[in-house]
């Protein structure tokens, strides 16, 4: 994304996920609970579609995190 600095830019993350896509560890932190999951699809009519599966998780050390898998690029990110 060009132009001014945006807040809440996604950061690449290392995630181990189960077969059904649920994250099990995020950046080395074990996932204790999954609070919510949702799917975002946007700009599917353009050459740069956006498809993300979001997970709101609680890690074993008590952190609340939002992570998503970019379904177009097959990469994981965290986001505040």
């Amino acid at each position, binding site marked *: *994304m*060009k*132009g*001014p*600095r*945006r*807040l*809440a*830019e*996604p950061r690449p993350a290392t995630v181990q996920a189960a077969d059904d896509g649920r994250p099990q560890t995020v950046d080395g932190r074990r996932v204790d609970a999954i609070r919510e999951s949702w799917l*975002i699809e*946007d*700009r599917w009519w353009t050459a740069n579609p*956006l498809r*993300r599966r979001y997970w709101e998780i609680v890690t074993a050390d008590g952190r609340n995190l*939002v992570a998503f898998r970019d379904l177009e690029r097959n990469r994981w990110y965290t*986001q*505040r």
Partner: protein
Amino acid sequence: MCSHVIVCVHIPRFELAVAAGGRHILAAGPVALAPEHGREQLIGEASAAAEAYGVKAGIRLGEALARCPQLKLVTPDPAGVADEWERLLIALENIGARVESDRPGLAFFDAHGLRNLHGGTVEGVIAAARRALGTPARLGAAPSRFAALAAASKARLRRSEIAPTKLAPYLAPFPVDLLSLRPETAALPETLERFGIRTLGELAALPRAALADRFGTAGPLAKDLARGKDSPLKPRRVAENLEERLELPESASGQQLERALGLLIDRLLARRERRGRPLRAAVLGAKLVEGGSWRARVTFREALADPRRMRLVLAPRLSELPAPADALRLKAEGFGPPTGDQRTLLAEPAQLRAARLREAVRQARAAAGPDAALRILPVDPDSRVPERRLALTPWDP
């Protein structure tokens, strides 16, 4: 030869080639520029294949399609054309030319002072200009602007044409259609051709009084042009490229666009290159989601550096956008003289604090750049994609 030699750079169908994405599209078949969004339904430049069917720039869309049913229409891209033309003008200025240009695809400069820089001859200057442009262009040289244009129209894309010193006999065989490339005389060729006057030589032979009677001031001007007389060049001042651009991934319109405009204004005013100068004119442009672009030039009633007043002037223009935008841009076109903040006679504590804060921000920006003092601007607070909601914009206390 007269000391002044005007060089004309003519790139035919420039707007069409840029909008179509390359000159090769023009060779593929009849192509023309579609009417601009929200304007009269007149087509723009047409390719040679389209012209063979009688399709010309300025005729109604319905008439063009009736003359050539297989005509392909290309969405106009005024912002892309302006960018590409600006790039070429800067390339010419980089060889030392002081350029005059009223429309994309046509530029003039005086080769007089450049000859010593480029081999001592006009041919050397033309070769340098051709190298700088890096794109096929027709180049002609003559002692006057209009004659240079005539020479360029006779030149080929890789062979330039230099007119002789005696211009009247040289110009005589050229068609009166050349006058259409000059704004003041653009309306004349059609009428002249209906009268059976087809060449500049025939036009030059007409009495000046009769031409003035029929065409007003454009008549004698056309006669002067046909005889090789023309006004001196008015080169543009070398422009500073001060522009801010914001991509809008959610194809914004309405309130989102106004917020984006506010952000662009803040960023433009915070640029160090502005050096305290207020803006006299700005160009607001957008890349449209359905292809093509939109561009509007706004001249302020007085030079402005106040973001609130600039927003008041520029925001209503956003309603002219014919479609949602993928990207918005704001470019400074002209500057007023540098101004300082005038203090009030009776300073109040709040104003004093605000003045100190402004000075602190100014010093911080001088030391650390425009990103030294920022505030959070909600660009699209309701977006489902978190990174599209908020952006950082320069803070103006």
